[in-house]
């Protein structure tokens, strides 16, 4: 399958994810692109093989469209609403890096609602005008060396 089709699928997947505030299904992406479910399924597989996406085992649906998570996680992202929207938007990041990445990707202010990995105390990170603040203070730990990130991306 040509790379340009895969990229079309990728771009539309992300656009729909942001528009819906949840991950679109394979069928929804196919319907939007007016193509077959099997074509989108194959594109997802190729994008996953290239470490662009992570799929749910068995169904072939999206698990991660980094930095976005298709399933709830302890990294809740509240993005400020755009001028055309009435409400703020809520997403889930795959980890603390990705949660901040969602705010960057959307190019809006926003907050990450999370908690200490050890004691569970709530921690809120606020991004405003390109600067981040943590309340209370926090420190980020990367447990897995970079060369092993994709060995078990779900754990990572």
């Amino acid at each position, binding site marked *: 399958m040509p790379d340009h089709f895969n*990229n079309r699928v990728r*771009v539309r997947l*992300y*656009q729909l994810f*942001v528009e819906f505030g949840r991950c679109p299904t394979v069928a929804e992406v196919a319907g939007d692109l007016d193509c077959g479910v099997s074509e989108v399924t194959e594109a997802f597989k190729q994008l996953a093989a*290239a*470490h*662009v996406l992570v799929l749910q085992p068995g169904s072939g649906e999206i698990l991660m469209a*980094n*930095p976005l998570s298709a399933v709830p996680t302890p990294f809740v992202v509240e993005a400020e609403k755009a001028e055309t929207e009435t409400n703020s938007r809520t997403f889930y990041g795959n*980890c*603390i*890096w*990705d*949660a*901040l*990445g*969602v*705010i*960057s*990707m*959307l*190019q809006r202010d926003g907050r990450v609602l*999370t908690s*200490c*990995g*050890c*004691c569970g*105390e709530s*921690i809120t*990170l606020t*991004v405003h005008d*390109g600067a*981040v*603040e*943590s309340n*209370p*203070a*926090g*420190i*980020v*730990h*990367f*447990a*897995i*060396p*970079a*060369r092993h*990130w994709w060995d078990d991306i779900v754990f*990572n």
Partner: protein
Amino acid sequence: MLIFRSEEHIDKWCQKWRLTRGATLSVEQTWRLADSWYRNRLSPDWRRRSVDEAHELFRSLGLNSEFWRLA
């Protein structure tokens, strides 16, 4: 990648999960990494970075140690 209240809490977590301590970043460093890594992800022109490009990005953020080597 998780956030913790303190270095002590990272040590406790590593002991609990029997993991060697990895790398720590400040929240500000993590934000700069996330911003550099993901800012253009919605763009049709986005493509996955090569290993060399990723290393260059890490270096630009002061992440020079072996921990940040992808290959």
